[in-house]
């Protein structure tokens, strides 16, 4: 069982928000996108995507509705709420600051 650690969980949320910012998606498509972007970095099972989605939905950062797909099946589509958009902006900013700071430190030790 690979339960994502807190750090990964945090980044997972950020990635989900980022993906949904482009367009509404259903679960499987999100997992495909995740795999594409970061297949080798984020070692998470597909299933752990769903608790994260449901949590984000509870927190009103994303909302979900059932729609019919192109191959005529009903799927649950997730999309970003206004709160989610704000959260994404905030989170990515702080992520950039943090990652910037960390890479600076990493570079320092290398010298």
């Amino acid at each position, binding site marked *: 069982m690979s339960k994502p650690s807190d750090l990964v969980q945090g980044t997972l949320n950020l990635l989900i928000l980022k993906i949904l910012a482009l367009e509404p998606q259903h679960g499987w498509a999100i997992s495909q996108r995740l795999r594409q972007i970061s297949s080798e970095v984020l070692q998470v099972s597909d299933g752990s995507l*769903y608790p994260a989605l449901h949590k984000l939905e509870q927190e009103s950062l994303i909302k979900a509705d059932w729609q019919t797909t192109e191959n005529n099946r009903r799927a649950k589509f997730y999309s970003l709420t206004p709160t989610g958009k704000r959260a994404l902006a905030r989170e990515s900013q702080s992520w950039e600051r943090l990652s910037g700071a960390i890479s600076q430190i990493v570079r320092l030790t290398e010298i």
Partner: protein
Amino acid sequence: MFQKLSLRLRSLFRSPAVDRELDQELDNEIRYHLDMQTQDFVRRGIPEKQAAILARRQFGNATLHKEECRDARHLAWLENLVQDFRHGVRTLRRDPGFTIVSVLTLALGIGATSALFSVLDAALLHPLSVHESARLVWLQEFSPGHNESGSNPARLADWQTARSFSAAAGFYSEGLIWLSPHGPLQLQLLRTVGDMNAVLQAKIQLGRSFTAAEIRGEGQPVTLLTHSAFSRRFQSNPAILNQILRLDRTAYQVVGVLSSDLDYPEDIDLWSPSPREIQQTSRAAGFLGIVARLAPGVMLSQAQAELDVLSARLANQFPATDRDRSAALTPLTTHVSEGVRKPLLLLFAAVAGVLLVGCLNIAGLLLARGLARRREAAIRVSVGAGHARLVRLFFAESLSLAAAGCLLGLLLAVAGVAFLKAVLPSEVPHLAAISLNLRVVLCGIGLSLLAAIVFGALPAWQFAAGAQNPALKRTRQSRLRSSLVISEVAGSVVLLVVAALLAASFLKLRSQPAGFNSANAYTFALELPWDTDAGILDSAAQDTLSRLNAFPGVISAGVVDRLPLHGGSQSNVFVVRGMTLPSSIAQQEFGLRTASPGFFAAAGIPLTAGSLYRDWQGSQGPREALISQHLATILFPNEDPVGREIAPAGKKEPHWFRIVGVVGSVASHPTDSEPAAEIYIPWGATYWPLLNFVVRTTRPLADVSRFVHEQIQQNNTSQIYSPVATLSERIAETRSTPRTAALLVSGFALVALALAALGIFGLMAHETARRTQEIGVRLALGAEPESIAFDAVWRAVKLVAVGLVLGLAAAWYASVLLQSLLFEVAPHDAYSYAAAAAVLLLAAVIASLVPALRAARINPIQALRHE
């Protein structure tokens, strides 16, 4: 944030059907994911069967993820908590005896505490709703010999020069008659000297405040209505502004209405500046109360230091009137509740004691219950309940108990407040306005929470301790229960001792020789304004007395300035013609009362030597006086006082009064055992507009009432007579504080005693049950049932004895605080302690008797098969 919480809370109360539907959706969503993934693999050339397996593998543990999704949906901990509470309520319902006793005990404690706290809150914590009331001070003057005395306008003017005050003003009150459209009404008028508004900084709701000239008493008389009079007497009609209000013989122009948030001084209908001639009274007078506002940044001690310097300067400047006089400042908030502070705090301590004993009792019951539930706890642990969950379960139970107790307690508090309002003496500030406010409710809830935490911790701790050595546990818990009972006993003993002391004090107070006979005596009063002509006063007294004397069945009727025990009207230092008094007596103040000759027979005060004085005639009269027996022994220990001449000291030309007789001494003060040393002079010899009529008759109260109403009041509509009361009633008023305190504390002590007895009963019943087998063996071996019963009672008595000793020791220390509330009873009065101990021992024996008799009746055969 709020939205999030509400969403989750909503999920908490979602019906199971909705929940099932959501689970179904989740399944659909996951199935869709797996299908899509499988299709994806198939598209990449993997056989369908394998693709499905691969997709599932890639998905991970589906059940776990679903569970996590559900957790995300629900606020798991809150859900568990609700479940715990449901469980708690269910277990409590299964044991109604325990639940009812605990909830009632808790409700009683919390109800009584909250009710008293609401009184405390109104009377002591928030006694004044005046702007920055903490800056207000009460200025009390003291005459030589440190007797409290009133001030006068001349001295007020001196106090106003103090730099420590931003403002100072004086006041006194008068009852005035207003011929309202609905008949004559008595209004309470506050006479102000100086700018009262500058001191209290009261807002004006309507109209204006007094002008500087009006404050000096110049020009047409003006008045400000208080908010309560404005709404009650004038139906809040603003048309009253600038109208003329005729009070007695004077016309006042209404210039304004004070705002509703002013509540000092209490029970006043209107304000009016004191007339000019009264503002010019001499420095010898004493009728003003003084309040002042401290200047910004000035501390009370600094202001007091300035007053001391000022007093010394005034003593030099005006030696005739100001020598040896002093003044002391107290915060006004303290001053208004001074008389009731100690009794109220005492009552609160007593009621808190009851709550404590009640809590100890519930704790004992919970412990006993915990023992019985050992097996339940063990099963819960074995099927996987964590310790934390089990502890939470106990807390949920105690919280449910506390919630029920709190709710019922607050309901009881509502009744309690109504009860307290009825029984507490009217000196309690804001008595009428006392109610259960938010602060009181929060206090009640806080107390319940505290109780819940303590009760919950106990079984939890018991459980944790029990996880170790079970044998050790049993003795330890039995010891714990015993110590709870000991504390209960100790707590109730303290309360019983205090109750016994207060009761003894009250009985002493009531049985102190009054010096007068209140049986068959009735009284009513007529209060006239301070500027009433002496002639009018005189005719009011004469007219009323002659009508009373003409009433069939009247034995005697008289008028006096103040009723016995209601304090003297005036007091003074006296000189005796041709006699040099020892300096200790020469400086002592004695009471001066004015009374008509008929008063003595009406009040049943005996004449012990000489004869009564004659009636005062008009503006002149025979300058004759009577002295009380006690004064006779002080002034004339070895000679006959009759024929001696006596006069108030301090005048250049003494007004001599010849002593014509000696009358019995009456009790002087409700809490003073010394009889009054007093001089009586004829009614009319000094000016005093408060007439207290006393009438002795064989007729019942209703007859006297009707007579006063129909024959006296109807013929005199410009004056209002107070309702007729028995003299005993009016005398009892002076003792209402000690009586109420004694009654309430005794009530609380009895509740605590009952709780302690319940605790003893519970413990002994449990002991008997535990020892059934042992007792069976003893009986089988030939022990007498009586000795078994005696043994059980003896065990209880031994336990109680420990609590008794602790309680008596605590009472020994605590009762010293009571000293000032006790009359002629020492705080270490042996009888009170013995009585408390005896009552408690008796209760203990009775409480342990039932289990003891049960023990004696145990059937040995059955007992041996027990367990």
